[in-house]
């Protein structure tokens, strides 16, 4: 059924709506149940991490001398208290906040360095590419943990520096992936067209290459965050994590592991929080990967 077109105007009412790649991806993601649930959980976790500490009646660093190692549901502590009588729920929420922050920021640092480095290397190619990748190989050959320890030890146990240290180590794989993607993108026709049109290299990199990297990069970042959080928890185990009284999930877990028999909740609560957080990132990352390029698994 058609209506008579008005003169001078195109009738778009029944035109077939085109689907962009983004729509495709979003649709596929929504269909992936596990990923959708994971995304929802993540949003929830971020929300309670941000707001939660304001709602809990105890401060995360508030020492309650008479509540030392109280079990859950005693003395007004919903999830119990630690060895200084500090409320475990409050501390877990703050730990969640710190772990998410470390994970996201460090991954973003890795992203920024890795994308810039990899895109430049892949696009410029030739000698420059070889040299840059050689450097990556050298850095890869250094044991990660030793590197981080030296950085932590030289610059102190500042939270910001923790982000930077971990990010400075994780960018390598990102660089490799981005370089690989750039290499294959470089040969595509639209890049040739842009070059023919006279665009400068930085412009091409920024306006054509970068947007096409978004997919794999997002996926990789989502999957790097859990690795970063685990790396931070390893540093806490070594005694190099965040400074007291601030805490992270890793610190809480390693302290709890030492009190497992006496006060199991000090281990169980942060460990469950960590497991849920990391699993959510993993499922979301998998879902994103499937959604963005279902063939490219």
């Amino acid at each position, binding site marked *: 059924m058609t209506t008579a077109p008005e003169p001078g105007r195109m009738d778009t009412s029944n035109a077939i709506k085109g689907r962009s790649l983004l729509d495709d991806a979003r649709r596929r993601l929504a269909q992936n149940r596990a990923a959708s649930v994971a995304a929802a959980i993540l949003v929830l976790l971020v929300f309670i991490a941000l707001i939660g500490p304001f709602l809990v009646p105890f401060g995360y*660093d508030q*020492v309650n*001398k008479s509540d*030392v190692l109280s079990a859950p549901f005693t003395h007004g502590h919903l999830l119990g208290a630690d060895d200084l009588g500090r409320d475990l729920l409050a501390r877990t929420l703050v730990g969640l906040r710190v772990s998410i922050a470390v994970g996201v920021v460090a991954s973003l640092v890795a992203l920024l360095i890795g994308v810039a480095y990899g895109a430049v290397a892949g696009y410029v190619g030739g000698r420059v590419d070889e040299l840059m990748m050689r450097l990556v190989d050298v850095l890869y050959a250094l044991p990660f943990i030793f590197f981080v320890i030296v950085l932590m030890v030289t610059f102190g146990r500042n939270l910001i520096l923790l982000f930077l240290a971990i990010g400075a180590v994780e960018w390598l794989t990102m660089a490799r992936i981005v370089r690989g993607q750039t290499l294959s993108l470089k040969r595509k026709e639209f890049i040739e067209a842009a070059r023919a049109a006279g665009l400068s290299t930085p412009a091409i990199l920024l306006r054509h290459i970068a947007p096409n990297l978004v997919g794999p990069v997002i996926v990789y970042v989502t999957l790097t965050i859990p690795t970063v959080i685990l790396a931070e928890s390893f540093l806490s185990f070594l005694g190099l994590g965040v400074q*007291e009284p601030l805490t992270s999930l890793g610190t809480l877990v390693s302290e709890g592991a030492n*009190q497992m028999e006496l006060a199991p909740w000090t281990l169980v609560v942060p460990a469950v929080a960590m497991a849920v957080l990391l699993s959510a990132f993993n499922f979301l990352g998998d879902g994103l990967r499937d959604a963005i390029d279902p063939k490219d698994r």
Partner: protein
Amino acid sequence: MGRISTLSRAVAVGVCAGILAVTAGCHKAGGRAPCPSGKLCFEATNDADPATLDPPRTSLTIEANVLSDLLIGLTDRDAAGRLSPGMAQSWSASSDGIVWTFKLRKALWSDGVPVTADDFVYTFRRLEDPKTASDYAYLFYLIKGAEAVNSGRAPLDSLGVRALDPHTVQITLTHPAPYFPEMLTHNVVLPVPRHVVERYGDSWVQPGRFVANGPYLLKSWTLGDRIVLEKNPLFYEAQKVCFDRISYYPAPDPVSAERRFKAGDFDLDIDFLARRARYLRRPDQIPKAVHTPPELADTYMTFNTHFAPFSDQRVRVALSMSTDRDFITKALTAAGEKPTYGFVPAGTANYDAMKAPVWASWPFPRRLAEARKLLSAAGYGPTHPLRFELKYPNGIDPAVAAAMQADWRSIGVFASLVAEEPQIFYQDLPVRDFQAAIAIWVADYDDALTFLNLLQSGTGGQNYGDYNNPEYDALLAQADHEPDAGKRAAILERAEALAMASANIVPLFGRVSRDLVDPRITGWVDNITAFHPKRYLCRSDAAARRAAG
């Protein structure tokens, strides 16, 4: 589908086969090292591997623990930690207290060569030799010429240690020191066999070359795994030694070591984690194995008096008052430590520990109020809050610092916490790169002076609080020349009271040793010097164990 079930079947079979293979040789799962039949073995943990077994190059209890089974010095301790004859059967000092003479017993090195006074002369010279680069050479600077030798300004033979004859050692000091025989139990002056060291140099300590004059010989040492010692038949009291073999396992993770102790893998686990004491003492756990006697060490707080707020004594006292030592020792560390207000630990030989100040018995809220008053008198209050950084090394429980921080916050003082690695911490403090710090001081020998010496104005770097009081220095010098132990103690106690009132350093609590000892072990006596050589130990079921093998 058939594909999948074959695969999963294969995996299942593989796993079962693995389990069977492993449990096939299954006696009740033991991680305990097998002991040859007819012998009695002792398995002990150590904090870590010793850095070395060469006495002058040792510095920590990690090394002292093992060395006390291999070598005996001029003086020794009995099972209760009391001073007793060692290689020297008797000793005496001249009337001015400067010249000490030691008469040696007849004893042999494990290769049959007699132990002579020459070995001791050689040992002391080697300690002070700058080429040996001993960390602890300074401890014996009280020997005449030691400092000059160690600085390279004098030849080795100018050291005040001589062999009057093969069985007499004479040591000349720079000032009287009634505690000198005490000092000679230190691991750094355990004798080394001159004939072996001259032959092999620093590598004389390798198993196979190591020659000992003590109850055990060095059989093997695998780094990270274990050190194995075996009975020395030529030890002068070999017949009294019960265990045939001692093994030391470095155990960097204290909780794992404790679990293995419970499983029977170890007879002795030293330095278990303090906050586990409460759990281990539960009736359903291993209460009889837990030993936490006080030790000759303190945890204390020190202030950098160059940092403006801390130049005011009232501020320092206020912070001391508002630290809840009782909560920390009873609820937090809970291993048996006691709050302390004097720097010299209770139980130190020839000394009465300082009494707590009056305010120590006030209820805590009253102390907080009083602290607030002191702070406002010094100019700190809600409009001008006191802010500073509290540093502590990675050996101190962060919860202790966090508890102090919380208490201070309740009186409007804002402390930020900085935990540092020991390397960096002990580098920062001497150059005064800190504002306030929590540190530990462990005695080098059983006498009040090893603590009080720190506060002398001439001490330099390690006088972290920069305590500078000529009256204090004079009292210490006077004590050095006082031959009567009781009078000397009184002088030192007066000095301590002076220093503590000034609060440049503020003792927090005394430390305790933390050992898990299998209740079937006999001969273990808790003592303040934490001295437990294995030659005094045996088992109540020794005969049965030997027979079973």
